[in-house]
Structure formats: C-alpha cells, structure tokens
C-alpha cells in the first residue's frame, strides 16, 4: 500500500470508530473500544466478571433501577450540581469560563456518582461485601459513604504514601465505617492499592463486589463507570446551552479517566467542540517523573485491560509521580486510548507547578479551593485560553481541595502567589 492509501484507509477506520462510539456501539460485545479494552483477569475472577457483566447490561437500562439511582443522585448526592460562571477567571484569561461543580457533590468529588451507582448494582446482583482502592481518598470516602448508606461492609485499600498525603480522607473513611488497609507493597500508591483490591476480590469473587473507582480495569468496568459518570456531561451541556450556548472547548483532568469520560461523553458527537484531557506532567517529561500515560505511554496490559500504559523495555510497569495522588497512576481507561488514537480528544499535560498555581488562581479569582487533580484541568484550560482569545470554555471541576491540605501546607501562600517551602523540595 502506498503511504497515501494507508493514511486514508486509517482515517476511514478512525471515522468508523468515531461513528460507532457516537452511536453507542462501543464497547463491543467483547468489551473492546477498537483495539483497546478487553478482560484480562485471572481465571478465578471470570465467574464474578460474567455475573457483573450480566448485571450491568440488565440493570443499567432498567427503569426501576434508573429511578432508584436518580433518587439517590438528587436526594443524597445533591445533583444536579451547579454550573458556575467563573467571572474572575474569565476576566483574567480573556475568555468565557464555566466550571462544572462536582466539588459540590456529597463527599466532594465526582467519585460519588460511580460509588452509589455501583453500590446499588452490587446489592442487586447479590454481593455482600465491597472492596475498593483509592488514591486521593476521594473514591474511598465515596465508597465508604455509599456502603454505609446501603448497609454493605466496605474495605478500602490505600497505598501507604497516599495514606500520609491524603490523611484527612483516611479519617473520613473510618468515620463512615470503612476498614482502611494501608498497602505496603510495590510503589505504595494507587497502582499497588488496585493490585491489593484485586487480590482480595480473587479470594472471595462470589460474595465480594470490587467497586473500582475509575474508568479503567477489565470489561465491563470502563463501560459501567462511563455510564454512571456521564451524568456530569449531560447536566453540563443542558445547563450551558440554556445559559450561553455550546462550548468551544471542554477540559477535564485525566487519571484513570472517569471524570473526563463522564464530562466528554455527551460531547463526543459534537465535532465543533474541542475536547482536551489534561494529564499529570509532574516534574518533567522523563519516564518516572510524571503520570502522563497517554502523552508518554504505549499500548500494554495492566489491571485487566489493554490500554495505554507506562512501562519499560522489559514490560515492567513504570513508577509514576504527581503532586496529586488521584492522577498518580501508570494506566488510563481504554476509551481514552481510543479517543486519542482517532484524534477526537487532545491529551496534554500540566506540571505539578502549574497545578499548584492553578489552585492559587482558582482560590483567588473564584473563591473555590479545587482538588489538585482538578487544578490540572484549570491549568490546561488557562494555556489554551491564551491561544484562543474570547473562547467559551467548560472546565470539569472534579473535586474540592480540602483533602489536599497536608500537601498544600508545604506551599504557603505569599502576597504574590504560592511559594514552595525549603523542606518541600524533597
């Protein structure tokens, strides 16, 4: 094939995948988003995965289930969340900036949309116990709260490093009745917590439901989590079009990718809307210095899915770094890998420093303390706004920053901005 024919047939393939996605045909019956996704789990988990898949495809379209879920989302989670016109940021950036306020949900991050949905589902398919992993602790808190609400015992695995840097959330999980197990193996962050949660699940696949917190993992999780999170984008689109019109660009931070897919999903078919995912650029571009999976990774298999991944030439998974625990993960959801491949979403990075600056700017301009994760989306949007003056920008503010106080304390506020203290250089 000549290069031209190869290029045009690839373009046709990508256009077909995009129309499949928009038409709701992905994931396919094998749990694939094009070449990505699938279900790479130990044989012991296959019966549990089959039961979950059957439950997902039976209950998500079920009217009674949806009604029950919507009641919880309104009554308990506090949906719909506000769409805030960010006058301060708009003035500073020379843009029209809107914030979708997932920080206003019960427990303070988008994670609760997924946790309550999966909790209801788990109970319906007969699970008697929940295990979850957590990085920033937001998903752990959400899972603990949902389990308390639904009367299910809950065990949360959390890397030792994260237990320390997100300490307020550990106390919240305890208060909400969850057992928190600090993980001391591997890199002692989110990825080790996922390993431990899977090991627990393998030991009791019938009685236990694994309440996975992002749009990652084996099929059906990436699909299930997207469906439970896409309420973010549905609300935001309705709110924004009622008040102003369609956005020119939509920004969300990408760790595993759940708040991003939740915000983007409703806009995938609107090809005039630019979609931008912002990954953690950490301290720099070298392997190990960031968690920018889509920007620096290649296809591989971890935690049940074939997706973009950070690993070395021997196939060993790379240690990652980000100032935000929730983005500190070497993998990403398979649907994002597809969206990148077909060019529908742009994935960029924001560094630790840019994220910290964005926290300060959002506090100063809007009176909102965003989570460090969400601050990456703000930082990415700010850069884009500088090149696209006057644009209407929608930013997913995935969570609030209260949990980050132990880290933020190392970066005291000065009159001109934020300054790193000497001991924070470690």
């Amino acid at each position, binding site marked *: 094939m000549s290069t031209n024919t190869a290029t045009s047939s690839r373009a046709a393939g990508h256009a077909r995948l995009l129309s499949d996605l928009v038409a709701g045909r992905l994931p396919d019956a*094998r749990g694939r988003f094009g070449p990505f996704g*699938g*279900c*790479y*789990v*130990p*044989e*012991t988990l*296959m*019966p549990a995965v089959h039961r979950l898949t059957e439950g997902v495809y039976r209950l998500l379209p079920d009217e009674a289930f949806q009604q029950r879920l919507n009641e919880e989302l309104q009554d308990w989670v506090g949906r719909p969340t506000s769409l805030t016109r960010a006058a301060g940021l708009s003035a500073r950036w020379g843009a029209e900036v809107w914030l979708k306020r997932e920080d206003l949900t019960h427990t303070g991050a988008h994670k609760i949309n997924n946790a309550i949905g999966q909790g209801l589902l788990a109970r319906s398919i007969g699970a008697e116990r929940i295990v979850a992993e957590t990085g920033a602790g937001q998903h752990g808190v959400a899972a603990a709260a949902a389990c308390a609400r639904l009367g299910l015992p809950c065990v949360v695995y959390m890397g030792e490093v994260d237990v320390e840097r997100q300490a307020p959330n550990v106390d919240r999980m305890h208060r909400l009745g969850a057992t928190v197990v600090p993980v001391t*193996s*591997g890199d002692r962050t989110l*990825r*080790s917590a*996922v*390993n431990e949660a*899977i*090991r627990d699940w*393998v*030991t*009791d*696949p*019938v009685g236990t439901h694994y309440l996975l917190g992002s749009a990652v993992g084996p099929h059906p999780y990436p699909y299930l989590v997207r469906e439970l999170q896409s309420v973010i984008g549905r609300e935001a689109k309705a709110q924004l079009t009622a008040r102003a019109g369609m956005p020119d660009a939509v920004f969300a931070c990408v760790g595993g990718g759940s708040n991003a897919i939740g915000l983007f999903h409703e806009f995938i078919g609107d090809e005039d809307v630019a979609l931008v995912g912002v990954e953690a650029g950490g301290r720099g571009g070298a392997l190990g210095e960031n968690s920018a999976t889509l920007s620096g990774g290649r296809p*591989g*298999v*971890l*935690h*049940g899915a074939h997706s973009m*991944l950070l*690993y070395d*030439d*021997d*196939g*060993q*998974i790379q240690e990652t770094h980000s100032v935000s625990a929730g983005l500190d993960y070497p993998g990403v959801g398979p649907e994002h890998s597809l969206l990148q491949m077909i060019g529908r979403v742009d994935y960029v990075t924001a560094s630790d420093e840019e994220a910290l600056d964005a926290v300060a700017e959002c506090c100063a301009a809007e009176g909102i303390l965003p989570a460090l994760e969400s601050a990456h989306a703000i930082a990415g949007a700010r850069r884009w706004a500088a090149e696209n003056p006057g644009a209407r920008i929608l930013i997913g503010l995935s969570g609030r920053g209260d949990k980050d106080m132990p880290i933020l304390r190392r970066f005291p506020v000065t009159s001109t901005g934020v300054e790193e203290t000497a001991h924070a250089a470690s």
Partner: protein
Amino acid sequence: MPPHEVIERALEAADGPALIAFLTAGYPAADSFLDVLSQVEDAADAVEIGVPFTDPMADGVTIQRSSHAAIENGVSLRWILDRLAGRSTAPGSPPLLLMSYLNPLLTFGYDRLAARAREAGVSGFIVPDLPLEESAPFRACLEPEGLALVQLVTPATSAERLTELCGQSQGFVYAVTRTGITGGEVDLPTELTAYLRTVAEKSHVPVCAGFGVRSREQVQRIARHADGVVVGSALVEVLERGDSPGEFLTGLRP
C-alpha cells in the same frame, strides 16, 4: 515430538504423582539462577520458571517479594531466555515452562517470542492474566513451535467452561485448589475430591493441582485424584531461607 507433548509425556511418566516445581528466576540471587534451576530439575518432573513482574496481581506475598527482588537483581524475560539458551542440558531433563504475566510477553514481541523460547529449551507458558477469551493471538504465536499454553481452572469454574478450558489446555491442566492468590497455609478444602475428579474426567492431558501445596501429606491427598501437584510459594520460601531445594522437593514425594 512437539514441546507440549513433551510436557504431557514427562508428567505421565512420573514415578508416583508428578511434581511441578515453581521458582522465581534470579531469586534470591541472579548469579545462582542456573545452579538453583539444575538442583530443582534433579528433583522435579517439570519446572515452572517465574518471570518477575512489577504487578503480580494473582500472587500472594511470597511470590510478590521474590518477584520484586528478582527485578532489582536485573532479571527480565530477555535475561532468562539468554541464560537458558546459553546452557547445556542433559537429555531427558524435565520440561521447562515460563510463568509470566502478559505485559512482559507483549513487550518482548509475539513475533520473536516462540522461536526464542523454543531455542532456550522452553516447552510451554502459563499466563495468569490471560483468560481463554483473550488468548487467540498468543496461541497463534505459540502454535508454529508447538509450545503449550496451560489453562487454569478453579473450583468456581462452571461445568460448561471447565469442558472448554480442559479441551483447550496443552501440557497439563492447572487445577487451582481454591479461589484465592498463590501461597498461604490454607487447608485444602474438603470438596477438593469431587472437583479434581470432574477435572480429570474432562481433561485429555494430565491434571496437576496447585496453590498452597507445601507438605507431603497434602501431596498424598491430592495424588489420589490428580496426576500431580504444583509447588510454588513453599519452594520459594525454601530458596529464601537458603535451604536445599532438592531435599525439600524429594521430601514431598509420598
């Protein structure tokens, strides 16, 4: 004879229950790998060589520990194949299998893997995070060289699925004794008898049971219903303590 059949014949020819020994390559030290391997070969009917991986999600603490240490020792799939290819083995020495998570295999490249593995004297693979449904590309890579892909079955596997997995397994069927991760001292469940019998009925290759096997008494009990046993974490602990793997394995035989 294709390598997968070499495994099947070797396990069938065992004197008493077949003993499959698992060790993590390059653990506790990289430079003693081939020496430890030959001691294990002298006492086992087949050997599983563990390729270390950073995220062994189906393994308990012992194999996690050995896996991380081996990576620190510089061990990789490439390293293992190079060491194996560079040694001479006596005819009739027990068949070797590689136990690896999928990502190191994918990274090595399916196009080169099977030929390189066969050159290195490897007869088959066990891949704990590769269920049958996702295994077609890997099986296609192994087939030209006749290398085995061993399927695992568990007490939770449905009857229908058991038939399918037993039908597809090559070398042997790996009957996991309980739902759980590797290692531990958990008692073998009492329902094991019926489960192993069902697997044996459906399998056309030897059935070997593993996970948590560490004593001669357990080997005896399993041997009544299966063709052999797999001993993993217990052997890794022996290596960890610096004890003789040969003595330990010989002591397991009824």
